[in-house]
């Protein structure tokens, strides 16, 4: 209870600053917090990355095994994305099976990976109808200070791009890098009293009326979108956020290399 109630004074302070076009940490409305991306954190994963966006800290790992394809896609590898809001990351996260927030996070990241077709799934076919590569992306939030969508997606991108398919140990030939064709990037913004703020901190998220995550590819095309929270966005605001996501997406893309 006490863990998630925000004081009215803090809320008012955010609004007062916004009225002057400012944010609590001094950032511009379309500025990201400092981002750090470190790949190859894990020796047991086929690919991994640890991403920090401000104080938000996310660890992502990719594991691959050989398995059966789905019946309707007999010549394609299988993708699964899972996210965990583990209790060590925040006093508000509880132990137990993934709650609706974990599930939403996982599914939005999954959409960005899947709909962008960034991974050449046909290249992950070993023997049609019999054997394909199964790819698991597991996202763990370690420290929560807002904007899990972007931190998690950046982590997933970095982890996937550094993934080496473990063909050798599975008796399927030589290891090879996971074939990546596109670089989708997600950018999340919130609407607070009709101001748009990119990369919200936890406090900004608590005060936000609506949230929109937009995932674009290197051509600026849309690959995934998710509107969240219980408020509304005008079409104009949606347009502004999309345009900002394209612009900032290009900058973020350079961080992944």
């Amino acid at each position: 209870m006490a863990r998630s109630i925000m004081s009215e004074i803090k809320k008012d302070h955010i609004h007062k600053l916004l009225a002057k076009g400012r944010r609590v940490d001094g950032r511009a409305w379309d500025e990201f917090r400092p981002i750090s991306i470190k790949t190859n954190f894990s020796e047991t994963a086929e690919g991994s990355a640890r991403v920090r966006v401000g104080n938000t800290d996310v660890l992502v790992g990719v594991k691959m095994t050989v398995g059966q394809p789905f019946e309707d896609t007999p010549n394609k590898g299988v993708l699964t994305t899972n996210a965990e809001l583990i209790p060590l990351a925040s006093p508000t996260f509880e132990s137990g099976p993934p709650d609706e927030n974990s599930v939403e996070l996982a599914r939005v990241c999954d959409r960005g990976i899947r709909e962008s077709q960034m991974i050449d799934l046909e290249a992950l076919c070993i023997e049609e109808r019999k054997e394909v590569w199964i790819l698991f992306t597991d996202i763990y939030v370690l420290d929560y200070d807002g904007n899990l969508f972007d931190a998690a997606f950046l982590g997933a991108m970095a982890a996937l791009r550094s993934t080496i398919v473990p063909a050798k140990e599975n008796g399927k030939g030589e290891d090879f890098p996971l074939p990546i064709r596109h670089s989708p990037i997600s950018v999340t913004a919130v609407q607070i009293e009709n101001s748009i703020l990119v990369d919200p901190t936890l406090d900004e998220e608590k005060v936000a009326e609506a949230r929109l995550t937009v995932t674009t590819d290197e051509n600026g095309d849309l690959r995934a979108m998710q509107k969240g929270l219980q408020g509304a966005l005008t079409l104009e605001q949606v347009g502004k956020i999309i345009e900002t996501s394209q612009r900032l997406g290009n900058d973020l893309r350079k961080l992944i290399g």
Partner: protein
Amino acid sequence: MNKENASQTREIVLPGDLLDSGKLKAGPGTYVQDGRVYAAQLGIKNVKSNFVNVIPLGGRYIPAPGDSVIGKVIDIGPSNWLIDINSPYPAPLHVNEVPWRVDFGDTSRFMGVGDTLLAKILSVDETKRVQVTMKEQGLRKLQGGQIMEISYSKVPRVIGKSGSMIQLIKGMTNTRIFVGQNGRIWLDGEIENIMFAIRAIKIIEENAQTSRLTEKVREYLESVTKTEQAASG
């Protein structure tokens, strides 16, 4: 541990460190085993009179009667409010302990969930059940301004010797600042000045153990405030 000059260095101790094996008596933050006094907490070793104690460097605020605290309403009942005082123990505030006349069931009209208030710890029993009051002079609901939280163990540093540090910040930023014993701080003034004061307090929190802290804070404030401060104090 830094022991270049034993009389000047403040010694960090860890749980299990031997503090004294003879003459000193055990104060807060320590425990006794086989006639010896050991540190029970991460903190600074301190000897006063013939007691040895440990000043904690972290941990949760544990309320003590008489403490002034800044609380947040987290729940309301018909004849009381439940106040979060940034401690493992929330504190009920009864309608008899507020400066207003509140009819049964009318509590939400005076303070709602999310409201901030200045209160005092009335009592703490053996099971650590806490009672707070707003009935003293100066205690009230707070509005406007901004709230920040620091570790309660840094409160003495933020206040400074005889209040010198907090007066420095208040004077140079022209803000009103209330520092609760529980590590919550309320600031009010012009928005720019509030931001400077917050930053100054963060500097103290991050550098609480270093030397020349007052100068660091003063330098920062001088560099950001444009108003001339009166050479008071």
